[in-house]
């Protein structure tokens, strides 16, 4: 994390259902923005590290997301790949909520 990294507004928190994920496109990249049942917010890359699929189309349960294509699971808090066929970690980004808006730190 660097001081020069910028916080960018991604979406309103109330647009994001609890225990769910939403896609956010910024520049040429897609990000997956997660909201847990207890209202914490996490952000990862949106493209599965196994084969091309949007993680934001996946299935959220607790703090894991399952890729909709081949059911590879990730812990979206850390990006860790939890089961085959996923084996490489998803990149994660810092996120925060201010005045009802989700901000993502992009380095």
């Amino acid at each position, binding site marked *: 994390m660097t001081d020069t990294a910028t916080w960018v507004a991604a979406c309103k928190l109330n647009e994001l259902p609890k225990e769910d994920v939403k896609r956010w496109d910024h520049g040429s990249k897609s990000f997956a923005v997660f909201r847990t049942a207890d209202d914490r917010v996490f952000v990862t890359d949106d493209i599965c590290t196994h*084969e091309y699929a949007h993680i934001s189309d996946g*299935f959220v349960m607790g703090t894991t997301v*399952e890729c*909709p*294509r081949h*059911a590879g699971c990730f812990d979206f808090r850390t990006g860790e790949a939890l089961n085959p066929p996923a084996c490489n970690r998803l990149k994660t980004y810092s996120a925060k909520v201010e005045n009802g808006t989700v901000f993502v730190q992009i380095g």
Partner: protein
Amino acid sequence: MKSDVGQAEDWPTSTFTLNDAPVEKNLSEHGMVIVGAGHAGARAAEALRKNGWSGKLTIVESEDAMPYERPPLSKAVLSGTNSFEKYPILVDGFFAANGIEHIRDTTALSIDRNSHLIELSNGAELPYHRLLLAPGAEPRRLNVIGSDLGKISFLRSASDANRLASWLQESAKVVIVGGGLIGLEAAASAIARKCDVTVVELANRLMNRAVPEKIALAAKLRHEKEGVCFKLGCAVKEINGVNNVSSLRLSTGEILECDVVLISVGVEPRVSLAQAAGLDIDNGIAVDKYLRTSDVSIYSAGDACSFADEASGERIRLECWKNAEDQAYVVAKNMLGGEQIYSTSPWMWSDQYESTIQIAGFPARGPFITERVCLDGSLLLFHMTETGHIAGVSGFGSLREVGRGVRFGQLMIQRMLTPGVGDLCDYTVDLRSLIVPAVVA
């Protein structure tokens, strides 16, 4: 003989724990032997190490390649998007780093069950303490005149996929015999390569064995939109050509001109090694609920393994990624002395064009079908029993709707829920809301 073997001191033995598996150390010098480094075999090797087996471990494979994922062969590899090496089952260097001897390009010829020895095609004899047979399956042949002509292929191995991919030139006339999942995935890949594609299928519908009719119909329409021509209810009577194939004659008398033929009419389990060793064979290598064959020292997993289905009692085989994956973990535990019962939770996918088919559970056991058409047109079918439980769920359409819908369906199956038909078919009702009460309970 090629062998990838690491030094014993390379393995991180300190991280291995003998959790619930009482390992019989006095036999450990014989080691564990796995025949077949396909999905089940490779994953079982990994699981044996992770479950604490630090003794000798050897995996024998007739192909000359590192273990690779097969699902991409009919898709990314055939369409030319990626090579099969991009899809390894294990991380690079896994065998060497974990002291697993990988004997490739070598076939297991026979098993001497009394002496616990396997005879290999390289002349070596390999002693085993426990043996896992994961030989997989091989393509069913088409017994018609001309089926040995050039430019006719099966699609099972990476070399099959590479050979076939090299034939799929633009405008090539490609005939696919067999309208099952592999045939249709190959059809989509051939269309991506701008080939002219015809699919010949003996049954009157596509994907007869694995996919509910309505899903199959939706997929057929999608293929027709891309220009695929279907000949249903037709058998191939004869294949003609000089060196290479040039035409097929169908049971209707029709002659189909072609440059390339793919035969994808299913697979047969490889049972010859087990059969010659006197193991019970019944629709595959017969195993008990612990995946043990009729010899207590020999186990089986993957496409060749036939197990008793809990509901019907019939011996079934599941030729899919998920089954190979799940059985590998169970069999590894049991080879180490565990008593884990294998219980199936079938799930499969097929990607055709940008659409996906997913099926979970046992749709055939749910005669009452509730249909949900999602906002983007994706189709989800909930196959329900008389008691209102979900026996299976299937879908065709976008990854988002089908992936999520099938996953929610799986939860309903696992939790034995009886959701209301009105809610299931109404796309405005969030499927998550139908499983929440069980979470609370």
